[in-house]
């Protein structure tokens, strides 16, 4: 059901772990399926993301999107990191089954939450970033029978 890339990132997740004294930490939960993701960012004085780690409690897609998302934001500036949307992550993973699209939102939201935390701590404003929602459950497009 999953692409080879998803399976690769699931089996060998990149950047698992925690960062002590992280510049920003974001934790989001998906009340709908009950999954949780936490992202740690290490941002330098030029607003470049030097390191990123994650921990995820979720399905194969959640783990793989966390892993891919951390790879994609590493080395980017905080502004550039906003371009790492769930869509971009899914594309990088060669797609996800339709029922798993919401899992990729978890990764996007966790990064945004970590960036928000970083911005708050440093009293800066990141253009286009808004306060994270406590719960990312959005409207699923499920067929109505």
């Amino acid at each position, binding site marked *: 059901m999953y692409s080879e890339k998803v399976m690769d990132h699931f089996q060998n997740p990149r950047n698992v772990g925690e960062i002590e004294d992280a510049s920003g930490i974001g934790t989001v939960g998906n009340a709908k399926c*009950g999954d949780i993701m936490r992202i740690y960012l290490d941002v330098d004085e030029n607003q470049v993301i030097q390191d990123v780690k994650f921990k995820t409690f979720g399905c194969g897609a959640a783990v793989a999107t966390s892993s891919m998302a951390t790879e994609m934001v590493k080395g980017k500036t905080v502004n550039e990191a906003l371009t790492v949307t769930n869509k971009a992550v899914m594309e990088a993973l060669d797609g996800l089954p339709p*029922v798993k699209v919401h899992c990729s939102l978890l990764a996007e939201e966790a990064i945004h939450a970590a960036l928000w935390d970083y911005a708050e701590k440093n009293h800066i404003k990141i253009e286009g970033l808004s306060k994270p929602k406590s719960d990312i*459950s959005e409207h699923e497009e499920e067929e109505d029978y």
Partner: protein
Amino acid sequence: MEQLIYLDNAATTKVNPKVLDAMLPYFSDKFGNPSSVYGFASGNKQAITEARENVAEILGADPSEIYFTGGGSEADNWALKATADAYEKKGKHIITTKIEHHAILHTCEYLESKGFEVTYLDVDENGVVDMGQLRSSIRPDTILISVMFANNEIGTMQPIAEIGRLAKEKGILFHTDAVQAFGHVPIKVDEMGIDMLSASGHKLNGPKGVGFLYIRKGVKIRSFIHGGAQERKRRAGTENVPGIVGLGTAARICADTMEERARKESELRDYLIERVMKEIPYTRLNGHRTKRLPNNANFSFQFVEGESMLIMLDMAGICGSSGSACTSGSLDPSHVLLAIGLPHEIAHGSLRLTLGDDTTREQIDYVVEKLKEIVEKLRSMSPLYED
């Protein structure tokens, strides 16, 4: 280990090669329609009669009380909808439990949309129905009690004979979904006061797409599939002869080997449960410790999500299943695990392993070792876990 370790026998089972052998002649050789009058087809009618007798004997029922269907879900739908139809003049109240299979629960929801009232009984932390609550839920307009024989997720068996006695005392029909139990544990419809019982071929090493509904003589029940005069005019449709023969053969084999098989499976199951509970911390056994199907083990591993666990087990060549929301298609974890009181995040980390008659001790040892590694790995990635 190269070989596949199949521990998902509650999902479906392998057709026993002896069962397949019994079915094979009816596809391309003896393919006649059992309703035909010529000699070529008369053997097929006979084959169905034998299958019916096999099934009836096991239940202590009369062959005329067995109606073959297209599976367990059809049997469940039939029992509930046709009873509702036939008895609605008497009343529109039905009692069932919160841990039934969706074939019962969604049918009850449908009936609610048609003006029936349904009481969904709670279960205790082991998944057992509370007889007191059942008794106090009975009303003058209650027409049916439907309680499953054994649960498909946690394996817990219900006090069926007790429920049957109560139903009889109150003059209420009693249906049981025995899809997981039939062929695995002894069932006697008379002793247990069962009026209707559903079963499905593919849960007992028989074929998919065939099942039956037992309907006690005297129970007023309408057809669900109308049409031709098959199955004593109660279930229309050209008979699935190979499927019915397969179900009958599988039932016979299960009956003949039940004791030995249940002993072997429950021994291995207990070995699995003991090792897992001892060697993996933060683990819960779901379902009743002893009143459970011989082949069912169900665990919750805290801080771990079920689908991830299944994928890793799959990579190790092990087939299992989970009540995790992430595998359910819907976004909620299993209604059964919630009903026994598990919080969402613990329900998430559930793993069901259901043994078959070919499961070995070596396989269990291998599974336990792999499971330890997998749980540890997933916990190390979990934001919920701190060691």
